[in-house]
């Protein structure tokens, strides 16, 4: 645990580093000041979005019910600044065991609350509490209105530094983008905080992504280093493919940590080729995911304690008015015992301006 003096010194260094980055970026930003598209002032109204869901999960005959709310807000300030945040509020109802009925537990946490400053066409400075850019799941697929399957991948704990969020600064943006390739990057430093709602570890890391528009192929690499005890490195890579000719998503990721490693591959195919995505059949989306984790040594990284394989078969149904139903069956194999997991979710996604306009 850091002393207050060390924490202040660390935050001072983070701040100094961000200032240095800002200074080095100043010259090009003056040359090419990023001006927003015209006539956007009336369209920059703060928004409120998020998801409201009711999850059920049956594992080994025990069913857990979890109503969840994840509110999100985005508030633009001037032409270059955006404040955005997302939180999770949930109540979990689960059996106590021994026929004693159900008990409950609740959780309230802040996924992120950050200020983004679009400094130049290629640089955005981020400060505050942010999602750690490692792999793809944490930043892109954790919103409940986006995820195809209720459970995250088994390897989620690698590189995400415990809570999945960092507190400090990040620089990110587009390196280049043309018809052949789009490159973007993210690099961060985080201080350690032990607050239950805003927890993070002292860490640093970054990510580099390349997207090939013609092939619709994305390849990326991630690195993370835990700076507090026990200091350790994590690396990861991902490949995503979304062919334009048909509505298939192919996502895969590999990560290696100090005590374990693993991969997952997920495919989803929206049946919109059958009379369009608003037809009865076209609203269906079968999902399949296979994943495997390998335990090299004991560790508290959140991965299974023994080598584990898991396959998920999902069937999602996209109803009108931003409502979807997710169902899935999973079989988990490990030396400690195999198990079946049945899951359902009813999810509503909302998105509207923060106030009524004229």
């Amino acid at each position, binding site marked *: 645990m850091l002393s207050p003096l060390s924490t202040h010194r660390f935050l001072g260094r983070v701040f100094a*580093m961000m200032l240095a980055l800002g200074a080095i970026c100043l010259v090009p930003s003056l040359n090419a000041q990023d001006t927003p598209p015209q006539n956007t002032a009336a369209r920059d109204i703060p928004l409120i979005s998020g998801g409201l869901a009711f999850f059920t999960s049956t594992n080994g005959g025990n069913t857990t019910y979890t109503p969840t709310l994840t509110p999100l807000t985005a508030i633009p300030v001037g032409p270059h600044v955006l404040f955005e945040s997302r939180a999770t509020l949930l109540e979990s109802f689960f059996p106590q065991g021994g026929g004693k009925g159900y008990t409950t537990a609740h959780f309230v946490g802040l996924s992120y609350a950050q200020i983004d400053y679009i400094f130049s066409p290629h640089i955005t400075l981020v400060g505050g509490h942010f999602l750690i850019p490692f792999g793809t799941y944490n930043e892109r697929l954790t919103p409940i209105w986006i995820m195809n399957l209720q459970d995250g991948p088994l390897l989620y704990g690698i590189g995400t530094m415990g809570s999945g969020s960092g507190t400090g600064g990040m620089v990110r943006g587009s390196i*280049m983008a043309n018809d052949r390739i789009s490159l973007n990057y993210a690099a961060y430093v985080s201080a350690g905080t032990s607050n239950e709602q805003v927890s993070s570890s002292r860490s640093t890391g970054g990510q580099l992504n390349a997207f090939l528009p013609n092939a619709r192929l994305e390849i990326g690499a991630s690195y993370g280093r835990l*700076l507090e005890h026990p200091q350790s490195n994590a690396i990861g890579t991902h490949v995503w493919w979304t062919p334009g000719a048909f509505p298939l998503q192919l996502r895969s990721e590999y990560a290696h940590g100090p005590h374990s490693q693993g991969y997952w591959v997920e495919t989803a195919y929206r049946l919109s080729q059958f009379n369009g995505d608003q037809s009865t059949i076209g609203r269906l989306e079968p999902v399949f995911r296979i994943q495997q984790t390998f335990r090299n040594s004991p560790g508290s990284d959140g991965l299974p304690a023994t080598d584990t394989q898991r396959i998920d078969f999902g069937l999602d149904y996209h109803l009108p008015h931003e409502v979807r139903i997710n169902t899935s069956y999973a079989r988990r194999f490990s030396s400690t015992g195999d198990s079946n997991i049945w899951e359902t979710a009813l999810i509503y996604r909302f998105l509207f301006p923060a106030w009524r306009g004229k």
Partner: protein
Amino acid sequence: MNTTWKRLSLGMLFVAALPLLSQTAKDKAAPAAPVHKQAGNISAQTSKEHDGQQVWEQNCSRCHNAPQGFSSRISGTIVRHMRVRAGLSKQDEQALMRFLNP
């Protein structure tokens, strides 16, 4: 400890310098107007909307479905959010804005 911080600082500066290098190269190479393969028989406005649709399909829909409608008053906020999240370039941001507000 100090060595680690020096390495981290150098690494961060290097990452920050990458876009500056590419920015310089891009500024020199950037065409006056975007080139469209199908520009022969469609209007410039439609072509720009096509660009925005392409940005949407290649960036936003890689992760999520399109919202089933939203107020145009928050389109600028959505685009700015996507610029940060998806690492959109300035040109992509503008094309997406035109696509959402034809």
